[in-house]
């Protein structure tokens, strides 16, 4: 296979989206990565989380659909399906199930999904990702809310703050959806950071509330 043709062949194989089955050596093209000839499970390969779960790249994900796609893939690829197979197949199925879990966990929650989308679409625009905060208004707002939370002495007071955070999160997610549709990655990045702070605040209200009870 190391002949002069092998590189050319590899390039055209990549282009065609065809990989060679490690077990029977035949071509594999299926979406569910099981060889259509011999049934062997194929390694996960380098594809993005959306492609892995069979979703279009978008911030708007219907979680019920996502669950079904996830369950369907795991039904075929989870290591439990390969318990009596050869050690190599077992190992590959574990890699597959791991990759599917990773994709599912990332796309399930709006914050992780937004973070991932900015990373996916923003390479070149924002090489650092969304970790830089230079949004004065956001910092002020967060500090104010933190102080109010620290001073809250009754569960009612905490609930007011918690509800406000929840409402803000909802609005933030709606805005993010629009920004991603308009391909405004910088704007989306800013809002993703805001969402991160809001979720943290919401978590803190929960902890504060438990302390008060």
């Amino acid at each position, binding site marked *: 296979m190391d002949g002069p043709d092998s590189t050319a062949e590899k390039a055209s194989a990549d282009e065609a989206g065809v990989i*060679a089955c490690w077990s*029977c*050596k035949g*071509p594999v093209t299926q979406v569910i990565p099981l060889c259509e*000839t011999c049934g*062997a499970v194929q390694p996960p390969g380098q594809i993005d989380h959306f492609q892995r779960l069979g979703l279009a790249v978008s911030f708007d994900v219907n979680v019920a659909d996502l669950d079904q796609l996830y*369950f369907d893939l795991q039904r075929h690829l989870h290591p439990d399906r390969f318990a009596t197979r050869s*050690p190599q197949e077992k190992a590959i199925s574990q890699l597959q199930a791991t990759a599917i*879990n990773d994709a599912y966990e990332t796309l399930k929650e709006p914050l992780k999904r937004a973070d991932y989308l900015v990373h996916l679409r923003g390479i070149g625009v924002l090489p650092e990702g969304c970790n830089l905060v230079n949004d004065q208004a956001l910092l002020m707002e967060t500090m104010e809310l933190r102080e109010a939370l620290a001073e809250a002495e009754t569960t009612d007071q905490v609930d007011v703050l918690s509800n406000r955070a929840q409402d803000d999160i909802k609005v933030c997610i709606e805005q993010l959806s629009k920004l991603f549709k308009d391909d405004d990655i910088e704007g989306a990045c800013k809002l993703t950071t805001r969402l991160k702070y809001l979720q943290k605040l919401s978590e803190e209200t929960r902890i504060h509330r438990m302390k008060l009870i």
Partner: protein
Amino acid sequence: MATLLQIHEPGATPAPHAGDERLAVGIDLGTTNSVVAISSEGKPEVLRDDDGKALVPSVVAYAPDGSAIVGGMARNLLLDRPECVVGSIKRLMGRGVEDVKSLAGVLPFDIDPQPEGETGMVRLNVAGHKLTPVKISADILSALKERAEEHLGHIVDQAVITVPAYFDDAARSATKDAARLAGIEVLRLVNEPTAAALAYGLDMEAEGVYAVYDLGGGTFDISILRMEKGVFQVLATGGDAALGGDDFDHAIAEHFIGERTGDKELTGSDVKMALMTARLAKECLSDAQSGEWVLDIDGVQSKHFFDRATFDGLVEDLVTHTQDICKSVMEDANVTPEQVKGVVLVGGSTRVPLVRKKVAALFAKEPLADIDPDEVVAIGAALQAEALTVGSDTLLLDVTPLSLGLETMGGLVEKVIPRNTPIPVAKAQEFTTYMDGQSAMAVHVVQGDREMVDQNRSLARFDLHGIPPMTAGAARIRVTFAVDADGLLTVTAGEETTGIEAEVAVKPSYGLSEEEMADMLYDSMKNAKDDMEARLLAETKVEAGRNLNAVSAALSNDGHLLSDDEFNAIKAVVQSLEEASKGDQRDTITAAAEQLEEATKAFAEKRMDRGIRSALRGVEIDALDEQASKG
């Protein structure tokens, strides 16, 4: 011409054991009792002794020659020969000497004092032998294996074994070691609540969100699951690996002893006596409102009146603690008590009336106990054993019970995998050096959810050497954690710029070393070498079977790409591998497999070539379509 070959449906490879009808069993290895069950065609059956008893007390008695008696007979020896009998060993699985010191006052174990500073697995003095919890558990597993073999009339060497969901990595791998020592291949470690959910879900065709409340002899678990069309997705799990019915017994025993006066210091056998009386009292009060018990220590008898109210008072704090854990697990799962459709009770300790009352109050519904809480876990394990070997439409998707992390500067923990992450999972984290020219880095793996290292469980320590001298912060050390479907962790670490790697399957500080394990295996079988050879042969045969299946599928699909001569040439090599696989010569099988690999190379190239051509043709047609629609 392909008719001479046996063709399977793609993906429907027969399991390697198909045809020899050997069933894999499900084992619930409990703190107080163990149960073994089998499942065939979706019908699970708990295996019972001649008296119809399913529960095998997890108690082992040792003779001076080291031979073991397991179960009811061992338990009966508890009072006469306490120094030869050991129970509740599950509480020590994966525990170190330091951990056990805190338990020793509570549990009637005679711990072998180890030299200061020595780590490793704790050893017990039983009947003049120094035994590890792994060895003692292996003896219980052997007894269960024997029961299954008698029942089925064939050798049993594969099992699904259940563990508490909240078991840490050390306890899980200790359980796997025990199985290996008993000659059992663990097909999967399944979490007890998940196994129970499987038994209920299949039995009742349940759909929606369910809670499984599992209070056993020594462990407490709560899992929240979503059941949907055969998928059992664990949303969150939590518990306490050192809380169970044993603690109820202790509270009662202490109460009884407190009512006596003038006792000298109690011996180990006195404590065992008091605990036994306490357990009887506890079991009796599951139905009765009150009763009277006699405690005989050192020939001094005392009478103790004991009623439900006193009992409730003694265990109330323990039960409330389980309620608190339930609440935080529901928060983790993002589920309210109203959203929980049903609560399944598992474990003998859920027979305690106060437990039932408090669980019902917390979830605002009567809990389910249709399937015997002592047997439900083994039934689930048996169903899963069948699913793994024969196949099934059900799927268990479990999570990590505890966060996994690394020690960073200042004794802080950096979480790498948070709790309740679906498994299998792999996550990497990058670290850097903090000193100029630093050439080595200590990696300390911990499990738990507290912020400081010393509040969590230490799983393993290893060093990464040979980092090239760089300025502080320039090296990029990437540590990868991988947790498999059994919940077992493997850690790898490497320096990115140089590619230096270190890998450790996390053999915990408290586990057995490979050498210790090998010694024990050798001692227990003497024929360890034959066993190893048998194992290699079996694996080679499985691999050959996979290969034959792959080639036969390829020939039936794409055989037309070959000339008759080429086809027959491959077929001849196929036949020689088939012949070799029937024999017991590993070398011959391997050689024939290599020949087949060689003989099919050109065929594989032809198939790939055709596959790529047709895929590219597809692309071109799509492109044409696009153009057509634009035009």
